[in-house]
């Protein structure tokens, strides 16, 4: 089914958010909240509920789009336990704020999804790893958890069933890398958020060396909605699998899109997976800011790379951005760059972010991110050389788990903007370098470094 007028799509995940006191248990229950939880606990065995989610083909909303039910089945059968559940609420991808809206405005939707997910995975302990810089989310989540304990939804025997669950709210360590699932686990255990080498994957050996599921906040909200509305509803939204690709599980369900940058109405919008970038900009965002033209857009958080103005018909589903050379859908956070933006500045800012956030374990990521930043510093200081562009591309092609040179995906996220920006906007970079360094742009000998750029 296609919606002709997208803005007429009835929001599901965001249905509750504008109500007064939407974050309270009272309002949530008035809207039918926790009914599904009670029903599932009362008459759906956990295996059946797990298979339901598996059948929905729900894919994780945290960035990688891994099928949620499939991840749950990776937990070892008959493990003596405990099994841990980590709800990834570290949301730090630039441009992304959908988890924040859910946690601040409708924490119970997230918690109901979390309780259902724990039921399906036999987890009796759940940690919510919350981005430190979200004080309101912290407040609302904590009060919601307190309400749940008081009302018997948490603790021993959830809603009078055999199932027991405790939820702990953990504030993060204020670093992007804490959102990577194994960095999150290390941080949760009280260590530096240095991602772990895999295998073993968290489902086999995660938090405290026990089987652990890590899911995103929005994924949990989707679990709750599937419990409410069923698989058929969920699969009626989004993009079906590509018949030519037997490994494509499709992109079903509603999605929260974060729209920011040069648009008239930035915000978090809900629509089915698979709308196009221009639909999002025009139907929801009211068009590019001040009637200007878009020059480029980030499809799903800056680590996904860049789309040019000609590529804005890109579909925002799990396979869409890849067709345009981007890394993937990521968090579906679209950042619009209008025609006044210098792509050199954009890339510089992006590189600054990743050099700052690289955890520093892997040589290629640690040095590659800082080297690319230093090169862009120099280019912007009017000392660029054309050769730098090839070097930047070489770094971009070398770092990441895709070429196999790093432990986690941060390096891929650092590489893609470099690759996309230079490959898609090379003329602009060359013009910039020639204009700002008219006498030296052809130099090939190693240049003297600028004063060390402090990124602390």
């Amino acid at each position: 089914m296609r919606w002709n007028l997208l803005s007429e799509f009835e929001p599901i995940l965001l249905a509750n958010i504008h109500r007064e006191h939407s974050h309270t248990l009272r309002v949530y229950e008035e809207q039918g909240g926790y009914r599904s939880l009670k029903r599932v606990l009362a008459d759906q065995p956990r295996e059946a509920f797990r298979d339901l989610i598996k059948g929905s083909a729900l894919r994780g909303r945290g960035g990688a789009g891994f099928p949620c039910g499939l991840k749950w089945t990776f937990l070892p059968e008959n493990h003596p336990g405990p099994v841990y559940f980590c709800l990834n609420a570290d949301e730090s991808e630039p441009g992304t704020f959908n988890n924040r809206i859910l946690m601040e405005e409708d924490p119970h939707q997230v918690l109901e999804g979390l309780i259902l997910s724990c039921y399906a995975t036999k987890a009796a302990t759940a940690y919510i790893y919350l981005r430190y810089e979200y004080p309101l989310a912290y407040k609302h989540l904590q009060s919601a958890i307190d309400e749940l304990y008081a009302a018997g939804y948490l603790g021993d025997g959830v809603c009078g069933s055999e199932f027991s669950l405790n939820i702990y709210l953990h504030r993060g360590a204020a670093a992007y890398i804490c959102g990577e699932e194994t960095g999150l686990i290390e941080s949760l255990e009280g260590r530096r958020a240095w991602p772990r080498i895999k295998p073993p994957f968290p489902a086999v050996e995660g938090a405290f060396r026990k089987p652990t599921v890590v899911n995103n906040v929005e994924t949990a909200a989707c679990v709750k909605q599937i419990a409410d509305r069923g698989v058929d509803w969920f699969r009626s939204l989004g993009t079906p699998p590509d018949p030519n690709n037997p490994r494509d599980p499709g992109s079903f369900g509603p999605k929260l899109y974060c729209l920011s940058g040069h648009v008239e109405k930035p915000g978090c919008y809900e629509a089915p997976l698979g709308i196009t970038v221009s639909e999002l900009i025009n139907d929801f965002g009211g068009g590019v800011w001040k009637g200007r033209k878009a020059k480029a857009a980030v499809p799903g958080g800056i680590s996904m790379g860049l789309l040019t103005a000609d590529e804005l018909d890109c579909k925002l589903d799990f396979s869409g951005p890849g067709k345009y050379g981007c890394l993937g859908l990521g968090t579906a956070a679209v950042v619009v760059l209008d025609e006044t933006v210098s792509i050199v500045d954009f890339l510089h800012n992006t590189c600054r972010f990743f050099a700052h956030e690289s955890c520093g374990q892997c040589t290629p990521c640690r040095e590659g991110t800082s080297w690319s930043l230093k090169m862009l510093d120099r280019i912007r200081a009017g000392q660029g050389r054309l050769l730098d562009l090839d070097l930047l591309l070489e770094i971009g092609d070398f770092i990441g788990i895709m070429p196999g040179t790093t432990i986690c995906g941060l390096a891929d996220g650092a590489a893609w903007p470099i690759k996309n920006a230079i490959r898609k906007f090379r003329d602009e970079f060359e013009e910039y370098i020639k204009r700002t360094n008219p006498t030296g742009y052809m130099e090939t000998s190693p240049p003297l470094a600028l004063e060390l750029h402090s990124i602390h």
Partner: protein
Amino acid sequence: MAIVLIDGQEIEIGDDERLNGIQVAARAGVEVPHYCWHPGLSVVASCRMCLVETGKRDADSGEISMLPKLVPGCQTPARDGTVFVTDSEKVRQARAMVEEDLLIRHPVDCPICDKAGECHLQDYHFEHGRPERRADIKPFHSRRRELGETVTLFVDRCVMCTRCVRFTREVSGDAELMVVHRGAHEEIDVFPGFPLENKLSGNVVDLCPVGALGDLDFLYSQRVWFMKQHASVCAGCSTGCSIQVEENQDRIHRLKPRENPHVNQWWMCDEGRYGWKYVHDNARCLAPQQKTEGAWQPLDWSDAPAVLHAALSGENCSPENSPPKNSNPKKRRLAAVLSPFLTVEEAYLLATYIRQYDENAVLALGRIPQAGADESFPNGFTIRAEKCPNRRGVEMLLSALTGDVLSWESFLEQAAETPFDAVWITGGYPPVNGNDGAGEDVASEEEKSLATELPAGLASSTLIVQDLFDSALWRQADIQLPSAAFVERSGSFVNAGNRLQSFEWAIRPPAGVMTEGQLYWRLLDRDGLYNARRVLEDVAREHIAFAAASGEIPATGRDLLLNQLV
């Protein structure tokens, strides 16, 4: 049995062997360069120097399918059918990139870097790096700060392999070292007020693949290429770590552990590592002397056989003639004290010599220096309280020869009851004010009193004392024979775990000193130069307890209890 393919070469590995790509490649004679991986530490796979291509060979069809990505060899297990390619263009490119990355912020101050000549960054860069620099050149910057009393950090030379950090967490257990800051700003550091001070601290310097960690004891004392390496055994305690003595022109510059899975894995303690200073101490006894009519006379080594003959038998013989053998017409009562610092071979030769004069000569075990209690570390490494290398070896020999082990204390009691006519006492103990390398005085009360008082019961005997340093015993001796330090001697020690390790001398003794082995060899009229190997063969043939010591002794030693029913 499993077959692994390394660059097309088939390598067999045992079914229960768990090897990674680096290790199987080494079996094939192929070196996979690596920084962060170390066989004695956990795997972090972060430096990415060991990237290789991997795949699988189908058991039935023999078809090989390769993974598109590179993988770290250190993290990739070798199983039956695993394929590794370490010499492809892709692998070469990856190594070149990692090397280029590591040099971006590196000072490359090799001329003033202790590691130069044995630096992995130098060697790998030479072999796998790019010939030209492409990164921006930044001004030379090489900060230094002390991490503790033993180790200094050249901050900017670090390649962030975290070996040192993991060592203090996993092996020594005190976790003093940590990584501070993030990304390219990362540095190794200690928490303020909690310096690196554990008894294994020196190992982090050996572990460091580059010149970031410097050993304050060794720093700037020698360029590594001037030193020669000699396999040896530490005499610091009865663990008997396998070590490597590094010297130039008979001066030691440092000791390093030598890998031995049965004894010390890859480590040694600071006490042993820095405890060799007495070898070059000016206070060492260097001149053999004899007391004639109460006055000291220099003793020429060539006269020693006749002088010692006279001292033991009470019969004079002219220095020109070699002393008659087995002649003890006066039936003098003799004793020899075999120090736990003697090698098995030396103890055997001395015992044989004494018993030529008195077949019932009393043989006793020398004093056993003790300090504190055994100390074990998280990975099992143990520093023993018994501060001597060969108590087991001498004990086993004594039981074989006398059916019993007479301790130093019991020996003194015996001597007090019925004094001996002549006693030969061997020493070789480090000086009594010897410290444990960390500056702590570890001399026991007994050691201190030995330095000043002669034990009762020895006063009336003719005393032959062979030792490294001055003591009451030494001063009361009738014949003083300077002894050689462990690094100057050859032979075998048996450690607390009954493992016999043989070693050759690493440096020559100072002028004036004749090594124990050489002296005894000469006293026994054997031909040529002292040959520890031949002596050990005799011991192994004659005494069942040493049977396992026949034949070539491997570099990691041999378990003497092997094949014995005990």
